[in-house]
């Protein structure tokens, strides 16, 4: 207590006198006796009461405004996630008008709402792009800068006609180069792989891009990004004849990172088993067929076929 700044003239308080119930009386005491306040309440100075309450109220107001800001932007984000883009956009605009500090968040919120508004229009898309560009180029960088870059990539990749995959790749590359450990840098690696490999280019160019992407594998720090990256590369190997061994390697890595959706998880196990069988790795094939059955049970249309395969399995590779 003694370390706190004390206003001149002492501290005001409200005390209640037992003899005059609920009637506030003013008390005054010297500043030096602060430590004795607990034992001498009658000495409080009432004149400080409004000041304390005012400070409390200001703090409370600040807290309420902050909570209101959180709840209002939170409500807008929830509205957006629930598919109510028009209402969400209106909420973001309202918050921006009342809270200049939330401008970057509301700009991104409005941009995402614009991208979801129906009917889809070029005007909305360009407005969204402008908002994201404004957030992306403002100094200093913050977490919203990353979101803005990510959405600039998404606009180029998914919302622009004709699609600008090279433009999208630029934004994604910036993200995983400058912020490789961030959630959005990790996600950008996966998106970069997709736009690089699915662009219709000459087979040699696809192969070159694939090999460059393989060199980026060490940057994959998050399990979900690692899984998705390897799933993309594994599928590409099969689609563009980049080798069954490579496809198998990617699928094994994806599976190790944890595939979450039940049907996809079962399919990855089957793919590993089938590729292993094709490549002559029969022990590994059998292991993954069995894992598939353990996961899928009878609830998969492939279970019966896999059981049949295992029943006819060469004796020498049975455990």
């Amino acid at each position, binding site marked *: 207590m003694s370390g706190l700044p004390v206003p001149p003239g002492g501290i*005001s308080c409200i005390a209640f006198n037992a003899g005059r119930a609920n009637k506030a009386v003013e008390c005054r005491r010297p500043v030096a006796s602060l430590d004795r306040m607990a034992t001498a309440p009658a000495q409080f100075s*009432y*004149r400080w*009461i*409004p000041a304390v*309450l*005012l400070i*409390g*109220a200001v703090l*409370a107001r600040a807290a309420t405004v902050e*909570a209101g800001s*959180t*709840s209002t*932007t*939170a*409500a807008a*984000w*929830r509205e*957006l*996630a*629930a*598919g109510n883009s028009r209402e969400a956009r209106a909420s973001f605009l309202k918050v921006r008008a009342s809270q200049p500090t939330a401008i970057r*968040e509301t700009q*991104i*919120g409005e941009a*995402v709402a614009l*991208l979801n508004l129906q009917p889809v229009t070029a005007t909305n898309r360009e407005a969204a792009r402008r908002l994201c560009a404004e957030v992306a180029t403002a100094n200093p960088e913050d977490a919203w800068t990353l*979101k803005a870059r990510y*959405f600039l990539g998404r606009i180029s990749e*998914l*919302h622009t006609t004709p699609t600008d995959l090279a433009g999208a790749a630029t934004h994604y590359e910036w993200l995983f180069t400058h912020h490789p450990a961030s959630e959005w840098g990790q996600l950008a690696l*996966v*998106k970069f792989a*997709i736009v690089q490999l*699915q662009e219709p280019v000459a087979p040699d160019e696809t192969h070159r891009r694939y090999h460059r992407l393989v060199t980026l594998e060490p940057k994959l720090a998050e399990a*979900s990004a690692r*899984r*998705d990256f390897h*799933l993309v590369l594994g*599928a590409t190997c*099969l*689609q563009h004849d980049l080798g069954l061994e490579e496809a198998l390697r990617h699928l094994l890595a994806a599976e190790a990172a944890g595939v*979450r*959706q*039940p*049907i*996809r998880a079962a399919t990855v196990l*089957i*793919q590993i088993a*089938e*590729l292993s069988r*094709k490549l002559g790795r029969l022990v590994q094939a059998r292991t993954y067929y069995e894992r598939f059955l353990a996961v899928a049970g*009878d*609830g*998969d*249309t*492939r*279970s*019966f*076929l896999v059981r049949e395969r295992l029943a006819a399995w060469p004796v020498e590779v049975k455990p």
Partner: protein
Amino acid sequence: MRRGRLAGFAVVLGWAVFLVAGLDSRAAERPATPARGPTVIRFAHAQLEPGLREAFDALARDYMAVRPGIRVEQIAVPRRVWASWLRTQLVGGTAPDLIQLVDNDPNIILQNFRPLDEWMAQPNPHNAGTPLAGVRWQDTFVRPLAAPPAYWPVYLGFYAAPTTIFTMRLYYNRTLLRTITGRETLPASFDEFLAVCDHVRTWSKGRAQPVYAIANARPTPSTDVLFQNLMAATSQRFVVDRDPTYSLGAGTTDSARYMIHDALFTGTLTLRDPAIQASLRLVRDVGRHFQPGFLAADRDEAMFYFLQQRAVMMVTGSWDYPTLSSQANFDTGVQAIPLPGPKHPIYGRFVLGETSEADMSFRGAFALTKRSPQPEAAIDFLRYLTSVEANAKFSRVSGWVPAVRGVEPSDKVAAFYPRLNGYPRGSGWTVGVETQRLWQTYAYLLFATDDGVERLTATLEPLLNQALIGDELKETRESLSNLANYDTRAIADWALRQSGAEPLFSPERRSELHEAQTALEQAYFRSRYLLETHAKP
């Protein structure tokens, strides 16, 4: 001093106003205020088949006996007005607590229904004392809830709990079959089945009231069950053996469809492929036993043929069993749709064997509306509907297949129970709306003349590519809006986490969102790649 006290009082008052205002700003997010009096749970569905309302009524009565303070009201809405009724209720804020997801329309889910994930992760208390006691509600169904209407991968959540499973079956008039052939049941082999059809044709010749072997309707997407099953049969080996993703057909009906689509689009499969030619011959072999003019008939006309004993057989779903068994004044038999097996001399080389029905979708699924003023009570009733005891009774009274694990199907519905011991399903060449329209328009060629297979093939060949492009474009359009939806929820979730608010997803669901989006994005670009590299002008 008085001024100071007044100022203090004003500040306290102001503070209170701020707090109250802050609280009130969340009023719009609250569900409707519950009415006074006993809790009333209303649930709506579009199943007006005989036995269904009675089954729901019986369960509601049982439930009210278990929970005396609660009243349950059933709202049965005719199918033809369901869509407009639903829209009116949802927009008007007068929707009941629980609504059946009839059409699996993804556009109404997020805005109108609450995710059931938290409840699904808990055991169903109405299963106490059964083998499913303590089992998470989501794991108490006959197969994993992995697809709409129960689980919505695009929204990463459970939105409904199902009460039944639909399967497709061949119904037959046992009385008529006995009269015509002396048989009590249909044969299991495909050739013997065709022999029965021939027998009916011969028997019927010269009679004043002809009887046809099979009643069928024109091949619209919802009625083209028999033809699609026949066409899918001859692509079974293709889907499993030539799957470029090494996934044995990827395990879903859609994945087989995509595979055939891609193969046709890239030219690795053509209408002249022996498997597709065989499928057309197969369709022709069976189709010549349908009633005349079936290509202009709708489903109801086909049903009349069967009910009026002018056809011995018809193919329809398990949902029609209560209707048919109550309206038919003859003994009805049910069996799997007959398909050629792997030993068939002509079609056998394309076929693996009986198809698995492990991917049959759940139906009769109820979702919880966001405006429900008593979500906990509504969920408790839904849990009751899908408990072992109640689902068994539901199946017994309605004649529908149970959806809950461990519920033994009654004798009368056992024939509809999904076959799990079977091979992955193939797919016909009609892989989307446009190719289905092509088939619907030109199917008559197949049956018009003796060289129907060649005439149809030659007619379709120049038209197929454009139809495939149309189907591919439709897929990409739908994918695009779903991809944007994933992005929106990912950033909303992130923003909520940043601000310290409750996020939209758990870390596991978040990971699942990225996985689902990656898969969809890859499929989307694969479609675009195909369009850019193989679409002919």
